[in-house]
């Protein structure tokens, strides 16, 4: 109920917003109309309410006219509510005695008919004036921000963000689901356009992550639960058993040598199955941390229980522990940076390119390993048979990108990495290289120049989407070759080009677990499934959930420089939040009137944040304000009207509703 003792004195202000509102809505008419509404003491129209003079106008009236409620009709509250609340507060009135009416985005910008716009504006104003009478004084809650940060995903973005945060003196928890950090970059041989060796620039960063006193690195681990709110997140991390005591293992690999499997037998994930590994293995030579991992899906001990366990015996530091179970650690952090990366397009899905059917069709990532000196072929470009050198290679761009049948978007990095691979393949094999592209997209420092360089290196470029790859030899010399059919749109003819090897430049897709991650951290994804930024231009690394930031390819296809840049941006945002020391929470929380509560507990399930608890002794439920995020779902569920939501009390909404409809 409104406080009966105090007399409600409402000040109403309508903004012309230059011509934005004024040209459609007759502002003076609305002001005139509002002046006759109940409790309205002051009613004015002004060119720019959000300007300093506009705000001073309000403050002056509050002081001189003893206003105790303020209504401003202007733009969207999502834009200027803070501004006017501020103005209200400056004049010594509680900022929540303010109500805003959106007559720009919701009226003047979307309607042309002046008469109907005027009616609509009046309705909305009347509603707000009815509503504001019921407003109550509320206090914004200030909660301290925990300075520790969680970073999810140990690719180049996660690594950069971690180091920046750690160097700024913050405690960083870096969680990586693989056994090593490094992500995709660790698999690359060279990076475009400078062709500097990926390992040379990445591995130092990886080891400084490991060494950094402020960074706690958990590999082979996954975030399993997140609760809390900005500044105060509670996170559960599950460390998967690697059956090795991390602190004891020095990565001597004695165990790997002594494994009962004399030869590698299982597809090596790091080399995309181009080589074989043993059940106990080191992901790759520079893996960080230098700790082996036992794969319980392939290890004899776990499959049969009948394994001599030569690996364990070989370990002089007794680092083995076959009884390890998943271990859950709980941490508290104030901010989170998600750098969970991408998933390469699954080449099999482009059935017309015959990946999986014709052995010598490779994916670009497989080739990254083939040309890598530390790769399965020590950098020799060989066909699937492991011995033949290809004399001609076709690189097909946009596989799974810019395609209605698969993904519509451009994966951004493929043109450049295809050029890079073209260069490396030529360099390593001397083969004839054909690039099949739709458009060559090389914006970026030194990128176009790189393209020019390739043109001069004598790499062939054919502009046209490849229709199919097959083994249909029409002449004897085509036997055993792969035929690439494509329309060369520059000469306007369909061409058949026989090659020994086909490379599919696969695009980038949202990571396998993107949806789970987004749900866990309560953020959104844009339509194609990458994490949604708060604003595409002005808040590219923020999300709609305060304190959760995103960087790298999890937000959309991105190359290394962009990922690193975003990682820095995300770190800066997180630091800004942390160093401000506290966050202010909108006081729109729910509250249970104990005297009305009957203890039916219907509301408890309504709350996604477990903010409502039931006291079996009192037989009453109550809301933990700190956990409540103010959705109001519990309020609607209560058959006793025992719950109310600040700023959205039944009577506030009902009065707004009545105000809308009753002239």
């Amino acid at each position, binding site marked *: 109920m409104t406080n009966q003792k105090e007399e409600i004195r409402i000040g109403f202000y309508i903004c012309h917003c230059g011509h934005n509102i004024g040209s459609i809505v007759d502002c003076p008419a609305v002001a005139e109309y509002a002046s006759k509404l109940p409790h309205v003491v002051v009613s004015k129209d002004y060119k720019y309410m959000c300007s300093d003079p506009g705000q001073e106008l309000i403050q002056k009236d509050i002081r001189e006219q003893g206003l105790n409620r303020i209504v401003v009709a202007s733009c*969207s*509250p*999502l*834009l200027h509510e803070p501004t006017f609340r501020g103005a209200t507060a400056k004049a010594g009135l509680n900022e929540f005695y303010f109500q805003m009416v*959106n007559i*720009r*985005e*919701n*009226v003047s*910008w*979307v*309607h*042309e*008919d002046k*008469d*109907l*716009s005027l*009616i*609509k504006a009046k*309705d*909305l104003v009347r*509603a707000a004036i009815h509503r504001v009478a019921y407003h109550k004084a509320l206090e914004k809650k200030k909660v301290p921000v925990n300075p520790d940060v969680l970073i999810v995903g140990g690719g180049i973005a996660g690594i950069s963000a971690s180091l920046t945060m750690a160097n700024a003196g913050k405690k960083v928890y870096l969680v990586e689901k693989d056994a090593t950090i490094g992500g995709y970059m660790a698999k690359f041989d060279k990076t475009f356009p400078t062709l500097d060796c990926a390992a040379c620039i990445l591995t130092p960063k990886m080891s400084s992550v490991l060494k950094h006193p402020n960074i706690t690195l958990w590999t082979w681990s996954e975030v399993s639960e997140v609760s809390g709110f900005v500044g105060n997140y509670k996170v559960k991390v599950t460390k998967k058993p690697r059956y090795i005591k991390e602190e004891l293992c020095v990565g001597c690999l004695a165990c790997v040598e002594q494994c009962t499997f004399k030869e590698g037998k299982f597809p090596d994930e790091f080399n995309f199955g181009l080589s074989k590994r043993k059940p106990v293995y080191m992901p790759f030579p520079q893996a960080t941390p230098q700790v082996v991992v036992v794969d319980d899906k392939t290890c004899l001990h776990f499959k049969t229980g009948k394994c001599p366990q030569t690996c364990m015996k070989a370990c002089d530091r007794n680092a083995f522990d076959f009884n390890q179970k998943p271990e859950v650690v709980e941490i508290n952090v104030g901010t989170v940076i998600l750098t969970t990366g991408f998933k390469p397009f699954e080449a099999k899905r482009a059935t017309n390119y015959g990946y999986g059917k014709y052995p010598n069709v490779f994916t670009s990532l497989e080739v990254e390993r083939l040309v890598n000196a530390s790769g399965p072929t020590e950098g020799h470009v060989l066909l699937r048979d492991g011995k033949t050198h290809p004399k001609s290679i076709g690189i097909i761009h946009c596989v799974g990108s810019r395609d209605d049948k698969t993904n519509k978007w451009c994966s951004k990095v493929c043109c450049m990495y295809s050029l890079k691979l073209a260069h490396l393949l030529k360099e390593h094999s001397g083969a004839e290289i054909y690039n099949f592209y739709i458009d060559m997209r090389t914006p970026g420092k030194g990128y176009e120049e790189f393209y020019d360089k390739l043109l001069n290196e004598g790499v062939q470029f054919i502009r046209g989407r490849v229709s199919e790859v097959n083994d249909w030899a029409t002449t004897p010399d085509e036997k055993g070759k792969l035929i690439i059919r494509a329309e060369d749109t520059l000469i306007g003819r369909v061409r058949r080009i026989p090659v020994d090897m086909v490379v599919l430049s696969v695009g980038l897709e949202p990571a396998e677990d993107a*949806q789970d991650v987004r*749900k866990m951290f*309560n953020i*959104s*994804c*844009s*339509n194609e499934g990458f994490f949604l930024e708060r604003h595409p231009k002005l808040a590219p690394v923020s999300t*709609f*959930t305060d304190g959760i930031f995103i960087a790298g390819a999890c937000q959309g296809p991105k190359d290394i420089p962009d990922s690193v840049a975003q990682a820095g941006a995300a770190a800066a945002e997180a630091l800004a939040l942390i160093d401000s020391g506290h966050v202010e929470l909108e006081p*729109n929380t729910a509250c249970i009137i104990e005297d009305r509560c009957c203890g039916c507990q219907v509301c408890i399930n*309504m709350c*996604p*944040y477990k903010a409502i608890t039931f006291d079996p002794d009192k037989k009453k439920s109550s809301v933990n304000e700190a956990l409540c*995020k*103010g*959705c*109001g*779902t519990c*309020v*609607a*569920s209560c058959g006793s009207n025992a719950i109310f*939501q600040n700023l*959205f009390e*039944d009577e506030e*909404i*009902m009065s*707004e*509703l*009545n105000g*809308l*409809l*009753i002239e």
Partner: protein
Amino acid sequence: MQSTEQKTEQWSPRIVAFFCNWCTYTASDLAGVSRMRYAPSTRVIRVMCSGRIDPEFIMEAFAKGADGVLIGGCHPGDCHYSEGNYKCLRRYKLLQKYIEQMGIPKERMRLEWISAAEGKKLQEVVNEMTETLRILGPSKIKNVVETLAK
């Protein structure tokens, strides 16, 4: 900027629109910023989540003369509060059954999932619903209720 706004001489229904702050309300801002014209029939009441919407509000809206009620929430799985939209959907479904029993055409009440990015959809939904209500004509619920409350 396509002008799909109806002309004045036509009767313009009054739709009370309960919009979720995070999706549909943002979408309506987007529609504004993109200057998408649509019928001036909606009167938006902003709530933090479609899960806050109490069947009471909807009945009150009809009783006080709304020609239609439009609820805008986040797409399934996209709720800012993780599941409020499902809770809204469940209430809506039950309410819909009741509304029909009360002889109110179900077209007068509509639930739509409109994400923050779907200004276009908002425009379409509002125009569509406005048309439907024009065909149904003004709601008489208010008069009926008032004649009963002497």
